[in-house]
C-alpha cells in the first residue's frame, strides 16, 4: 500500500472509529439525559408528596425497639375495647389481621390473641392519602401501635369479637413488620372443615399447621385450646392441694422400665444406658411408703410406642395421683372422680368463652357428667356389649372399638360422658395390681373414660413385698431390675391406690376434638420431632 493509501486507510479508520465513538457517546448522553429526567421527576414527585403529606409524622415504621426509651404510655388490650371507652383516645398494640383499602378509606382488623376489633382510617383532615396508602399496604401479622378514638357503632360488627366499637385511627406505627408471604393464612386455619369443602375455600391440614406451629398457635382456636388446657392443670393442682395432697417431682431418667420393657426410650448414661420414664408409677408409690400419704405430680411421660393414631404421642404430660387409704380402694376412686368432677365444673364455669371459640371451628356436644360419678363393674360392661351383639370373652380386655361402643351405650343409657369401669380381669393388668380378694380372676383395678375413650388406668397396688415378688415372677419380670422398688415395701407400707391421666387427652376429649396433636403445643409422635 502507498503511504497515502495507508494514511487514507488510517484516516478512514479514524473516521469509522469516531463515527462509532460518536454513536456511543450519543447513546450515553441520551441515557444520562433520561436518567436525569427520571430523577428530576421522582424528586419532584417526592417533593410534591412531602409537600402534600401533612400527616407525615403520624405514621411510619418505628426503628427496632431496643429499649431506647421508657415511654409512659398505657396500651389498652383489644379485649378491653368496649362501649365504656367510647370517645376516649387510646393506644393499642395488636397484629394486623386484615387490611383492606376501599377508595379513600382503609379498613383494618386488629387482633390480639382471641380478640379482634375493626379500625378505620379515612383520608381527611387527620389522615393524608399517603398515610392511608401506607396502612393499606401493611403486611398481615405485622405488630403495630395505633392511637385511635374508640367509637360506638350503630350496627354490630359481626365479624369481630369486639362487636360494639370501632377505632378511628389517629396515628399508626409499625413495631415489627411481618414478611409478606405467610406459610399459612390464619383465616384458613380457623375455617371449619365442612365450610371449606362447601364453599371451595382453603382449610389448612394438620401437618402444615404443625410444621408452622408458631403461626398456627396464633389462631383464636389454638389460643382458646391452650388457655383451657392451662385451666385443666390449674384446677387439678388446686383441687388436690385443697384435699391435702402434696405435689412431688419424680425422676425421668430411670434405671428400669416401669410398665414393661417394650415401649421405652433408651438414653446413653455415661458408661451405661438408662431409660426415660414411662410413668412416675414406681416413685409415687415409694413416696407413699415414705409417709407422704397423698401425692400428685405433673410431668412429662415418655412412651416409645410406634402408634400413629389420633390419640397417641411419644411424649405427653402426665397428671398422676397416688393415695394411701384406710380400708377400701374405693376411697381412692371417689377421691379421683371428685377431682375430675371439680375440673369439669371449673372448666364449664370459667372457660365458656374458650369452649365456645373452639366449638366455632370444631362443633361438639357439651361434656356431660353425673354426680356422683357413674361406676360400672367390668362384668356389667361385658353384658351390655354382649346385649348389643358384640362377641367377646368374659375376661377379655376391651378393644378400642368396643370401648367406644361401650361409651355410646353408657351415654344412651345413663346420659353421661364420664364414667368408671371397676374390677378389670387380673390377666390384662400390670404386675403390681392387687388381685380381687373374692375372685382371683379379677383385680382391684379400674379405668376411667371420657366420651368413650380411656383417660385413666389405675388400681390398688400390691403393697406386700412377697406378693409383689410372686406377681413379678408370674409376669416374667427381671427381679434384679426392680429390686429397689420391691425393697420399699419391706419396712411397713400402707395400702394405697392411684391413677394417672394425660393432660392432652383430657383436653381433647373434654372439647370433643378428634386428634391429640391439636391439644399438644409441640407434639411428639413417631414421625415428628420438630418444632
Amino acid at each position, binding site marked *: 500500500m502507498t503511504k497515502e493509501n495507508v494514511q487514507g486507510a488510517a484516516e478512514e479508520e479514524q473516521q469509522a472509529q469516531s463515527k462509532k465513538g460518536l454513536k456511543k457517546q450519543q447513546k450515553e448522553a441520551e441515557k444520562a439525559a433520561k436518567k436525569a429526567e427520571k430523577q428530576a421527576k421522582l424528586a419532584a414527585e417526592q417533593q410534591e408528596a412531602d409537600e402534600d403529606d401533612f400527616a407525615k409524622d403520624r405514621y411510619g415504621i418505628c426503628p427496632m425497639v431496643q429499649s431506647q426509651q421508657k415511654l409512659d404510655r398505657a396500651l389498652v388490650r383489644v379485649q378491653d375495647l368496649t362501649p365504656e371507652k367510647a370517645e376516649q383516645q387510646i393506644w393499642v398494640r395488636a397484629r394486623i389481621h386484615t387490611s383492606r383499602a376501599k377508595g379513600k378509606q382503609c379498613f383494618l382488623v386488629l387482633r390480639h390473641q382471641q380478640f379482634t376489633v375493626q379500625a378505620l382510617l379515612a383520608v381527611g383532615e387527620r389522615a393524608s392519602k399517603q398515610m392511608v396508602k401506607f396502612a393499606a399496604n401493611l403486611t398481615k401479622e405485622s405488630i403495630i401501635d395505633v392511637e385511635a378514638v374508640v367509637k360506638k357503632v350503630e350496627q354490630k360488627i359481626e365479624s369481630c369479637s369486639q362487636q360494639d366499637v370501632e377505632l378511628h385511627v389517629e396515628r399508626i406505627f409499625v413495631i415489627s413488620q411481618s414478611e409478606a408471604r405467610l406459610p399459612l393464612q390464619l383465616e384458613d386455619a380457623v375455617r371449619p372443615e365442612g365450610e371449606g369443602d362447601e364453599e371451595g375455600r382453603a382449610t389448612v391440614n394438620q401437618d402444615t399447621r404443625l410444621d408452622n406451629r408458631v403461626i398456627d398457635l396464633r389462631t383464636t382456636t389454638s389460643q382458646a385450646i391452650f388457655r383451657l388446657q392451662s385451666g385443666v392443670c390449674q384446677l387439678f393442682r388446686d383441687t388436690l392441694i385443697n384435699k391435702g395432697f402434696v405435689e412431688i417431682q419424680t425422676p425421668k431418667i430411670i434405671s428400669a422400665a416401669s410398665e414393661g420393657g417394650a415401649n421405652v426410650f433408651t438414653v446413653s448414661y455415661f458408661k451405661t444406658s438408662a431409660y426415660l420414664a414411662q410413668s412416675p408409677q414406681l416413685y409415687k408409690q415409694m413416696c407413699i411408703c415414705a409417709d407422704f400419704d397423698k401425692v400428685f405430680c405433673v410431668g412429662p411421660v415418655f412412651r416409645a410406642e410406634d402408634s400413629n393414631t389420633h390419640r397417641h404421642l411419644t411424649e405427653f404430660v402426665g397428671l398422676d395421683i397416688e393415695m394411701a387409704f384406710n380400708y377400701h380402694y374405693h376411697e381412692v376412686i371417689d377421691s379421683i372422680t371428685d377431682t375430675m368432677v371439680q375440673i369439669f365444673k371449673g372448666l364449664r364455669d370459667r372457660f365458656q368463652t374458650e369452649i365456645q371459640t373452639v366449638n366455632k371451628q370444631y362443633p361438639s356436644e357439651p361434656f356431660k357428667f353425673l354426680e356422683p360419678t357413674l361406676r360400672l363393674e367390668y362384668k356389667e360392661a361385658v353384658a351390655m356389649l354382649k*346385649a*348389643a*351383639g358384640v362377641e367377646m370373652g368374659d375376661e377379655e380386655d376391651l378393644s378400642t372399638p368396643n370401648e367406644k*361402643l361401650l361409651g*355410646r*351405650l353408657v*351415654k*344412651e343409657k345413663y346420659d353421661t360422658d364420664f364414667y368408671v369401669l371397676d374390677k378389670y380381669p387380673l390377666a390384662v393388668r400390670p404386675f403390681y395390681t392387687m388381685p380381687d380378694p373374692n375372685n382371683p380372676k379379677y383385680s382391684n383395678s379400674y379405668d376411667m373414660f371420657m366420651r368413650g375413650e380411656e383417660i385413666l388406668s389405675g388400681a390398688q397396688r400390691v403393697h406386700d413385698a412377697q406378693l409383689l415378688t410372686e406377681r413379678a415372677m408370674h409376669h416374667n419380670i427381671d427381679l434384679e431390675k426392680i429390686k429397689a422398688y420391691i425393697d420399699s415395701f419391706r419396712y411397713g407400707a400402707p395400702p394405697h391406690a392411684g391413677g394417672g391421666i394425660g393432660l392432652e387427652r383430657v383436653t381433647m376429649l373434654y372439647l370433643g376434638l378428634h386428634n391429640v396433636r391439636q391439644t399438644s403445643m409441640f407434639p411428639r409422635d413417631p414421625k415428628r420431632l420438630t418444632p
Partner: protein
Amino acid sequence: MALRELNSLERFLGLKKPNKYSTQGGKKVPVLQNNNGPALIGLVTIASHLVHEAQRPELLGDSAEQRAVVQQWLEHRVTRLDNSSKEEVKVILKDLNQYLEDKVYLAGNDFTLADILMYYGIHHIVVELAVQEKERYLNITRWFDHIQHYPGVRHHLPPVVVLRNRVYPSGHH
C-alpha cells in the same frame, strides 16, 4: 348355603316332604330333579316352584305390578347381592337403605318371597355390621329386624341383635 335356604323355605311354607337337592357347577347352583319333567335349576326357580307347590301364590305377588317387583328383587338377590365385592356391598346397602325409607316390605304392602330371599341373602352382611353402621343403614336394620322376627322365617340363621334406641347421635354418620 342355597340348600340350607331352600330347606328353611320348605319349613316356612309348611311343605311336609323335604326335597332332595343337588348342586351343579363351581358356584353350587341348586338343582331339583323332578320326576315329571326337566330338572329345575337355580335358587329363584326352585323357590318359586316351592311357593306354588305350597299353594301360596300370593307370596309371589298379588297384582301384576307387585309380581314384577318381586321378580326384580329375586333377580337382584342372585345377580348382584350374591358374590358381591366389598365396594359393591357398600353401594348395595346404600341403595337398599334408600329404597326402604318409606316401605315396610320390599314389594308392596305384603310379605313376599322377595323379603325371605333377600333376608337370607343379606344376613351374612348385616351380622357383621358394627352398631354404628347398623344405625347408618337404619331402614335396612328396621326391615331386617322385622323379617327375622316373622314367624317361621328365621331357621338356619342366628339372630342379629338390633338395639331399641339409637346410641349414635344423628350427626355422627
